[in-house]
């Protein structure tokens, strides 16, 4: 089973965000593998261990993205594909998906996996859009994958504690829910082995995927605080009485 995992590199969780127009200043901050994508990678590695085949780590972005591809290789992906693009942070979801789809078309993939969303833009559309551009069936928010006789039986998370089983043919695109598995760490052996693994470099131009934008982020900013907190003071008993009063007659919620 040949699996392509789409992996995004995002600013590190604890990175201080210095806003610059519609993006952030990238100098002096660290970057890491988008956490939701690490679950998709882990799921791909587990499927390969069970069914054979290869796992390809596909990522897009500037040169620094290679580090994240190397991390995926160290964890067990067989090879990497890097769509080198300095403008990646400015692309809209459809343009990103079009470029990724063009790279995926060059491969013989049985399954394409993505994480649910990215921790930076948080569009949460890439998997579904890939399915649309590639004209493949898809399912999202997946909590379990079983492959039987060339078809998948999936467990999809719904809202409010509900789940649903779905049957899906192959090839297909799946968006993986975070928490589906416990992700592995790269071993020293894996890190050494990754040095010999190949990373192919492509560009959006060479892929012929230069879709015009459908949307534009005009600017980003720290949200303004809209609420003014009213602090209640006194003994526990006084505070409780004041709060009940406020909730009944001011907020009118009880």
């Amino acid at each position: 089973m040949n699996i392509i995992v789409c992996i995004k590199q995002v600013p590190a969780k604890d990175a201080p965000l210095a806003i610059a127009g519609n993006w952030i200043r990238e100098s002096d901050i660290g970057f890491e593998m988008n956490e939701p994508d690490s679950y998709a990678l882990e799921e791909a590695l587990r499927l390969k261990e069970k069914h054979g085949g290869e796992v390809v780590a596909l990522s897009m972005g500037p040169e620094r993205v290679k580090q994240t591809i190397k991390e995926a290789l160290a964890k067990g992906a067989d090879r990497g594909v890097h769509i080198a693009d300095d403008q990646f942070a400015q692309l809209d979801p459809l343009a990103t998906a079009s470029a990724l789809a063009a790279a995926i078309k060059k491969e013989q993939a049985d399954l394409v996996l993505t994480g649910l969303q990215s921790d930076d833009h948080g569009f949460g559309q890439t998997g579904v859009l890939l399915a649309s551009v590639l004209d493949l069936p898809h399912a999202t928010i997946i909590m379990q994958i079983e492959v039987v006789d060339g078809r998948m039986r999936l467990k999809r998370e719904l809202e409010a504690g509900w789940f649903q089983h779905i049957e899906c043919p192959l090839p297909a695109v799946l968006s993986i829910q975070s928490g589906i598995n416990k992700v592995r760490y790269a071993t020293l052996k894996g890190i050494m082995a990754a040095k010999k693994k190949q990373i192919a470099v492509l560009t959006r131009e060479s892929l012929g995927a230069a879709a015009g934008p459908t949307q534009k982020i005009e600017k980003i900013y720290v949200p303004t605080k809209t609420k003014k907190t009213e602090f209640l003071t006194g003994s526990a008993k006084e505070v409780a009485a004041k709060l009940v009063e406020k909730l009944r007659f001011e907020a009118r919620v009880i």
Partner: protein
Amino acid sequence: MKILVITELRQGKWNNASFETLAAAQQIAAETSSAVSALVIGQGVGPFAEELAAKDVAEVLLVEDDLLTAYTPDGFCVALYQVIESAKPDLVLFPHTYQVRDFAPKLAALLGKGMIGDCIGYRSESGKLIFVRQMFQGKTAADVTFQGPGPWFASFQSGAFRADLLKSHASGQAPINKLAVQIKPEQIRTKPLDLFKEAKSAVDLTQAPIIVSIGRGIKAPENIPQAEALAKAIGGEIAASRPICDEGWLPMERQIGSSGQTVAPKLYLALGISGAIQHVVGMKGARTIVAINKDQNAPIFEIADYGVVGDIFEIMPALTEALEKAKT
């Protein structure tokens, strides 16, 4: 401008987020002199169309087919593609539900268009619509605009608009127009099977009007009954931040936040919750937020309407007693 709202049903009932999006559409329409159409899709969903027709909309579109009985992304995309080609809306709005995330970006892409998803608001500036969404997990907001001609697609986060502001139809009833769609069975490639819950007593916190939520400040599982007594006195559901559920002190289904449920109750009591962004994204849509925490610098106070700096173990029982007293 013509605005089309795609409403959502969940196992034969309304997904209430539909009404929030319809309220948003009414507000946008009022500001931009637009007309709102509301759409119901499924099979045997006529009564829901009747209910929508009583709202302040220009028309209700009813899309029914045997192949739409159960939701599939392929079925919904095939049907709604035809609807949009014939109804020609300029703006298509959805509630940002799991189901919408599953098909709406594809529907937009089939038409060569983009979708601005998970919006928390909008502004209309000199005839141009600006949609506001969050980035970096809520640490920043972003103003986003559509490029090129419509139809444009956008979804609104649960709790971003108030369903109780929904206006009723002025003269009683909007017309209901049935739209026929052509779907072939082979166009639906995935097969939905059984629906199930993992936990027996799974609770739908998204529908709870009052939520009493506990965080690390609760310290030990033996203290939880105090919070439960308070929840009972105020008529609310008990919930928690992630660490409490990770410890197994409350079941995962009661977790609020980015990895749990997103709620927008009318009242949210945060007890001993610091207010990390992962938790806040799941509850900041609450209409009234009360925070009780011993640390006066806890970020939860940034979004609280009422704050108490103090010991939850003193205030919980006092509040329970005060609530019981207020009932009599």
